[in-house]
Structure formats: structure tokens, C-alpha cells
């Protein structure tokens, strides 16, 4: 790989990282929000490296070559320790170009349909539910309330859940789903709540669903199904924190 190409590659990778973190929030499709400062720093370092490479080429780097004419057919990158960057480095163009020009979409129904549901942690005590109605809950909290809360506080409450649509595949129902990253999309886990009572909406649509618990099994025990009788399903934009296990955040 020639020097100018190396410089271009560094600049493009740096630009890609900065593009995904500073100009847009595409990075949230791939990694957790906490990595943003590290990604920005990496983008800046790569751009600086590219700049230094571009600036340095006229001076010190060339110095060993300058007093003699490189013989025809000789290698290019002589004169320092690291002879030649291997061709494998070309592969780095793939993520760089992807980030700048053709960012792949966030994970969605395809992944969720093939993933098992993330097991819900066991919670011993439950605080009383706030009186708001409809009551906003995360899919995980709803599942916990349905399957673990002995006081059955969620019975006959109208709740509001947010997630995207994953068709169930087998029969009429569908799932409201969230995909959760611990670190990046490679360790994604899926939380699903079954939906009853409406037509299956198109896959990957983000919805805000209001409804009540779909009575199946004994509420407050593991036999209860995490499911909702849908009263209203309203399409919404994908929340900023789409891949965390939290209530949806929207840009104000």
C-alpha cells in the first residue's frame, strides 16, 4: 500500500468515525452510547495521523531517499523500519466507506425473530406502580410485573410499551421487541412481549402500544405470559436510545 493511499485510508477511517458520532448518531446502531467519547477521540487521532503523514512526507520521511535516485524496480517504502504495509490493510476501506457513505441499518426484526427472548432478572421487591394512566413501562419491567410481582399491581392497568414489530411467524400474533446491546451489536439480546388483538403491522415499525395484560396463565407467577391486549398502536419515530432497556427518549 502506497503512502498516499495509507494517508487516505487513515483520513477516511477518521472521517467515518467522526461522521458517525459528531454529525449524525449512526454510531448508536452499532455500539453503546458510552463509547462515543472514545470514538470521537479515535477519529481525531486518525485524522491527525493522516495530517502528520501528509505534512511529513515532504520533509523527514523523504530525507533518506533524496540524495539518490531510487533505482527502477526497487521497493518503495525503504528508508525506515516498517517496510511496506501489507495488503490486508485494504480491508479497512470497507468499514471506512460503510461509515461515510453507506451505513448499514440498525438491527431489527430479522435478528429479533431468530433470537431467543432475553431471560428477565429475578426481582424480589416491587414498588407500588405510579398512578399515571396509561403507565409507561419498559418491555423488561412489564415482563417482570407480569411474571414476578405477587401483588399483581399490573392487573387491569393500562400500560404503554414502546418497541418495534417482529412478526411471530407461527400464527396471528406478533411481538413488540427491543434489541439491547451491552457493548455492541454483536452481543445483542432481544426482549419480546406478545401482542394480541390487532392485525400484524409491517415488520420493523416502531410503535407505541397501549393496552392491558392479556390474561393467560396466573398473574404474578412464571406461568403468566408476557402479553398485551392492544387497545391502540401508534407509529412513532425510533427513539434515540433504541438499543437500551429504558423508556424511550426522544430528541426535544
Amino acid at each position, binding site marked *: 500500500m502506497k503512502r498516499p493511499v495509507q494517508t487516505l485510508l487513515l483520513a477516511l477511517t477518521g472521517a467515518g468515525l467522526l461522521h458517525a458520532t459528531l454529525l449524525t448518531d449512526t454510531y448508536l446502531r452499532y455500539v453503546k452510547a458510552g463509547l462515543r467519547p472514545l470514538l470521537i477521540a479515535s477519529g481525531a487521532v486518525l485524522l491527525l495521523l493522516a495530517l502528520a503523514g501528509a*505534512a511529513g512526507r515532504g520533509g523527514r520521511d523523504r530525507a533518506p531517499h533524496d540524495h539518490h535516485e531510487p533505482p527502477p524496480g526497487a521497493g518503495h517504502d525503504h528508508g525506515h523500519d516498517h517496510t511496506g504495509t501489507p495488503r*490486508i*490493510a485494504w*480491508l479497512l476501506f470497507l468499514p471506512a466507506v460503510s461509515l461515510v457513505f453507506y451505513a448499514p441499518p440498525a438491527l431489527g426484526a430479522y435478528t429479533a425473530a431468530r433470537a*431467543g427472548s432475553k431471560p428477565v432478572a429475578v426481582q424480589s421487591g416491587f414498588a407500588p406502580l405510579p398512578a399515571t394512566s396509561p403507565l409507561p413501562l419498559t418491555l423488561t419491567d412489564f415482563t417482570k410485573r407480569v411474571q414476578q410481582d405477587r401483588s399483581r399491581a399490573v392487573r387491569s392497568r393500562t400500560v404503554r410499551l414502546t418497541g418495534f414489530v417482529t412478526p411471530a411467524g407461527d400464527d396471528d400474533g406478533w411481538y413488540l421487541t427491543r434489541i439491547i446491546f*451491552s457493548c455492541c451489536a*454483536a452481543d445483542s439480546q432481544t426482549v419480546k412481549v406478545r401482542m394480541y388483538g390487532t392485525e400484524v403491522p409491517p415488520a420493523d415499525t416502531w410503535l407505541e402500544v397501549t393496552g392491558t395484560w392479556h390474561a393467560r396463565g396466573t398473574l404474578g407467577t412464571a406461568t403468566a405470559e408476557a402479553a398485551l391486549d392492544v387497545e391502540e398502536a401508534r407509529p412513532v419515530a425510533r427513539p434515540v436510545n433504541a438499543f437500551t432497556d429504558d423508556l424511550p427518549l426522544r430528541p426535544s
Partner: protein
Amino acid sequence: MEKTDELVGVPEGVAVVPVGPPVRRMRPWPLGTALALAAAATAVLLLAGTRWLNEPAVQAWRTVSLAITVQALPFLLLGTALSGAINAFVPADLFTRVLPKRPALAVPVAGVAGAVLPGCECASVPVASSLIRRGVPPSAAFAFLLSAPAINPVVLTATAVAFPGSPAMVAARLLASLATAAVMGWLWLWLGKDKWLRPLLRHRHTGHRHGHSRRTEFRLGFQHDFLHAGGFLVLGAMAAATFNVTMPRSVLDTFSGSPWLSVLFLAGLAVLLAVCSEADAFVAASLTGFSPTARLAFLVVGPMVDLKLIALQAGTFGRAFAWRFSAATTVVAVVASVLIGGALL
């Protein structure tokens, strides 16, 4: 064209001695060929339609491989920057003075020293390579390489968070990882051969050279190591994403029943999925059908051997080394997990 490329980026006003007439130089893979290939690929894509790129499976694959790469880039940069700094700024005899003289003693010391490098496994490969180039015995450098991603405070904290109420898992992970790292270091002393390593690592002549600017050396080493390791990282990320997307999770349930098979299965899963060591505890916590020992094997094998690490090691140390080392590490890590998991969990 070659000539214009050469002059790109030379700032005006910098005194440049004229570089002689344009000379056509032979290279194994000249830029022209690469550009022609890229143009051909683009043409094929445009002609055949980009529909297959929009298949959900392909999109998920692109997302996951890009995610692994993006997530690892900051840590790879940190690792290569450290490696470049060690090469250019650290005096050659520092490590030989600090480490015990006998390699058999240096191995556990280096293993424990792994606790100081925070972050993911990608950072430790270039650092270990620069340690070897600075005269640290390979056995000690490999112990460091294996232990650093598994026992640093960030990873241990994440493990404690993922397994609330079972501190034994944190202790078992720490002990089993340290034990594996030390055993692998000693194993290298006993059976390892320098000829498996890339030639660059065998002659330990690099580092600061008299008469060269340290800063330029640092920058060039940093850039070279990053581009080199980055290419292998992308390769490993693509391989891991392939398994991540194609493997149905229902496979998990078929193996969770048998205590022995489940240990081997989760160890293999850790290799194929290439989950970052800061996050693997959360994945392990979600594998509820499996015994604690099997999950410990997942946590011990994952940061030491996985597809992207094998690719990185093959690039940094050489292929002959990478497959031997990875295979041996997997075996040792599984044995250590079974022994320590059996005692503690």
C-alpha cells in the same frame, strides 16, 4: 499517475529536493490493479443490482461486522499507540530490569501485570508484540497478552454487574484466567519455538535507532501497526459476524443439558461469537440454561481466543504461531475453567 501520487500532500513552502524523474516501479499489487478490481466490483454490483445487499440477513451481517470493528477501533488504536510508544520511547533495558531474570518467574509477574491495561482484547495484541521486540521473553509477553483482557478492573467490574450476588464468578474468572495465562507462558518456555514467530519478531532489533527522530519513528510505527492490525481486525469481525448472524439461538438449548458437552459448546461459542471482553459477562449471564462452569469457560476462553483475535495474532505474530497458540490456549482455558469452576462455583 504514480508521479502525481508521490507528490500529493507535500505542503507548499517546504523545501523539497527534486525527486528525480518519474520512475515506474514494480509492486506485487500496484494501485492500478486494485483500482481496476474495485471498479469492476462496483460495475458488477450496479449491473447485477444491489438487491442482495438489502436482504435482511446481509444487512444484519454488515451491521454486526461493522459494529465489531467500530467497537474495537478505539482499543486497537490505544494498543497500537502504546506499542508505538514502547518501541520509540521506552529504553531497551527497562523491561529486562523490571522483570525477574528467570523467565519461569517472569511469566506470572507479566500475567499479573495484565491488570493494568484496561479495555478489550484488541489492545493487548500489538502491545505484546512490541514487548517482544523490546526484549521481553516471548513467554512473559504471551502471559500478558492472555491475561490483560480478562483480568483488568473494567472487565471484572462488568462481570460483577452481570452476575449480581455471585462474587464467586468474578473470583473464578480472575483465577482461571490468570492460571491459563501462566500455564500458557510456561508451556511456551517448554515447547515453544521461535521459528513459529514472524521473522520481524525473531530479530529483536527494532526500537529507537540512533539518528532518527523518535517522534517520526513513533508516528510511522503507530500508523503501520494500526493499518496492519486493523485489516486483520476487519477480517476477524467479518468471520465472527458470519457466525453471529447465521447461527440460530435454538442450537443453544440442544447442548445445555449435558454438563460436559455444554462446557465444550460454550467454549466453542466464545471463539465463534467474538464478543468483546467487556460485554461477554452479560452474554454469559443470559445463557441461563447452562451450568456455572460452562459459563465460566465462556468467560475464560472468550477474551483469549476468538475469531478476531486469531486473525489479529496471525497478522501480528504469524499464522504458524496463531493456530498452535490458539488451539493450546483453548484446551488450557477449558481445563482451568473446569478445575476452578468445579472448586468455586
